[in-house]
């Protein structure tokens, strides 16, 4: 049974062997050689160094195309034309499914036809050398961004390949991203990834780890996202990870977003021990975008504005083409520049919005209730507690496609556009917290003169793409 305990060196090596043999490119992995390789990298390509020493929010886009040369061009474009501080390499969906054979086919087809038949960069197929070629060719730190429940081989190859940051975690890359993966197994798989990152870290090569905060990207109540971030942070820390970036996806209400980012940082620092350096990342709106670039720029503008007020360590930007499909590199760079301009213009204004503290207290209280419930369900073991909590629905994620989460919780916006919980199901929140959510939603229902039904949730899901924040019935407020 899975426990929140550090894998022994022995366990690590045994898993290592198995993982490496899953695909031919695994054979090229050599830990000592990898350490040496990382040591050759200049400071400005070291992810944790750059991120942790920044004095303003750093900007990072998402981007991944199948072919190596094209990926290099793409990243260099985003760095030079977009002004990205940190670069990504987004992995394709077949690799996320450990379908390296299909990924290989896609890569071959991409090479032959010149078309992007994969929705990302198949790093496993490119192998250690391919990754290193990428790391050498681009002049900024690069992170692996994916969505892979079993990311062990991907981690082993990309770490050896020179990447020093790796997104994801056992909950955040399972629940929103897949249907049938067993959560216990995913936790074990990520213990390996985190332990491997820890092993590098102990040798002086800090591997930054970044749990995926936005989850399903769709009206996720901040307390749920924060609780999961802290849990994944704890799991990673146990395995020796020392640079952890906790994530949060914009919900669109500035007060709530600023409060949530502050709560995330505070709880991260509280629950993770002192040896861990905690940073935060804010994702510009992760839900459905407007089908119009001009309006999408408005959404991006609000994200940038929020970032400028909340001051996270990193911002993941969106492009105005989000609705349509994977953006062109020009549109991706445009999203970066729009964000940068707005943050630059606002950050020195030191804006403080009324009501943030109140919302922060509410979020912190609710998040803490969830975290504490998980810990108590596991008798102090966060891994066991997590399994138990998802089993009972005491921890849950709205719009979850996964069999491992009940997905019974339903969110809706209140009259100010803050995301509240509409259907708590078995979520481990106190009556006190529930009462506040209920009151806020009641007052919205009254404003609109309608019942709280799934229709309201559906309207809220569509609202931003329809040009509003709150899904009011036609005629509005």
């Amino acid at each position, binding site marked *: 049974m899975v426990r929140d305990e550090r894998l022994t060196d022995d366990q690590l090596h045994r898993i290592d062997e198995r993982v490496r043999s899953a695909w031919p490119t695994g054979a090229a992995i050599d830990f000592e050689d990898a350490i040496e390789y990382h040591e050759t990298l200049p400071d400005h390509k070291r992810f944790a160094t750059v991120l942790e020493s920044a004095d303003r929010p750093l900007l990072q886009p998402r981007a991944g195309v199948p072919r190596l040369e094209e990926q290099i061009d793409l990243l260099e474009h985003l760095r030079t034309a977009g002004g990205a501080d940190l670069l990504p390499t987004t992995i394709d969906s077949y690799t996320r499914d450990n379908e390296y054979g299909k990924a290989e086919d*896609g890569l071959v087809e991409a090479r032959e036809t010149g078309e992007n038949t994969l929705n990302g960069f198949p790093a496993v197929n490119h192998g250690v050398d391919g990754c290193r070629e990428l790391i050498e060719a681009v002049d900024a730190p690069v992170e692996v961004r994916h969505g892979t429940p079993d990311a062990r081989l991907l981690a082993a190859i990309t770490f050896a390949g020179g990447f020093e940051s790796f997104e994801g975690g056992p909950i955040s890359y399972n629940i929103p991203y897949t249907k049938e993966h067993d959560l216990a197994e995913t936790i074990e798989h990520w213990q390996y990834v985190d332990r491997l990152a820890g092993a590098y870290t102990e040798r002086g090569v800090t591997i930054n780890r970044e749990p995926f905060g936005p989850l399903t990207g769709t009206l996720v109540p901040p307390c749920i996202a924060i609780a999961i971030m802290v849990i994944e942070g704890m799991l990673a820390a146990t395995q020796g990870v020392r640079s952890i970036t906790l994530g949060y996806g914009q919900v669109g209400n500035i007060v709530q977003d600023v409060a949530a980012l502050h709560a995330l940082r505070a709880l991260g620092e509280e629950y993770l021990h002192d040896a861990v350096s905690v940073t935060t990342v804010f994702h510009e709106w992760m839900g459905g975008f407007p089908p119009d670039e001009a309006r999408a720029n408005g959404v991006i503008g609000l994200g940038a504005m929020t970032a400028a007020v909340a001051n996270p360590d990193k911002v993941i930007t969106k492009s105005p083409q989000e609705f349509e*499909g994977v953006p062109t590199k020009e549109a991706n760079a445009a999203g970066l520049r729009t964000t940068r301009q707005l943050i630059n213009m606002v950050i020195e204004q030191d804006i403080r919005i009324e009501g943030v503290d109140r919302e922060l207290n509410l979020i912190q209280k609710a998040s803490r209730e969830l975290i504490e419930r998980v810990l108590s369900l596991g008798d102090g073991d966060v891994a066991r507690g997590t399994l138990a909590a998802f089993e009972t629905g005491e921890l849950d994620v709205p719009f979850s496609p996964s069999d491992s989460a009940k997905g019974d919780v339903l969110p809706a916006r209140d009259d100010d556009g803050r995301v509240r919980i509409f259907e708590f199901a078995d979520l481990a929140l106190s009556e006190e917290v529930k009462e506040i959510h209920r009151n806020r939603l009641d007052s919205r229902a009254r404003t609109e003169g309608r019942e709280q039904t799934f229709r309201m949730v559906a309207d809220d899901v569509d609202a931003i793409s329809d040009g509003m924040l709150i899904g009011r019935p036609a005629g509005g407020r």
Partner: protein
Amino acid sequence: MATTVILGVIGSDAHVVGITILERALETAGFDVVNLGVQTSQEGFVEAADAHDAEAVLVSSLYGHAEQDCRGFHRKITAAGLDVTTYIGGNLSVGQNDFEETRETFREMGFDRVFDSEAGPEAAITALKRDLGMREAEAERTAIST
């Protein structure tokens, strides 16, 4: 008796929000919906259509691999001896493509209708009513009751 439609996201795609919205809207419009959820295989769709004697199969794909995921799908449907109306919708290709080309591709693969991601539940419902010849009366009844 209500018309049964099968709904699901094909391949390894996990975008669930769209079909969640579709499911509820189709139900409200009077359809019997069998929602297979995300990451459904071609076989999954075919078996469900067969088992539930469905009149239509609605395939959703958002993540950009729809073309690969749907190769051979209609052959399987025919092989199973099924005569169902098939729709596909979502973000059907990787990147910023011309939708008309995309539509053509999927029409050639055998889909009766191809929807872009701007098409919401209403478009699906209108099309189903037309294609399945749902009786006007039934349509009206449900319109009144919602």
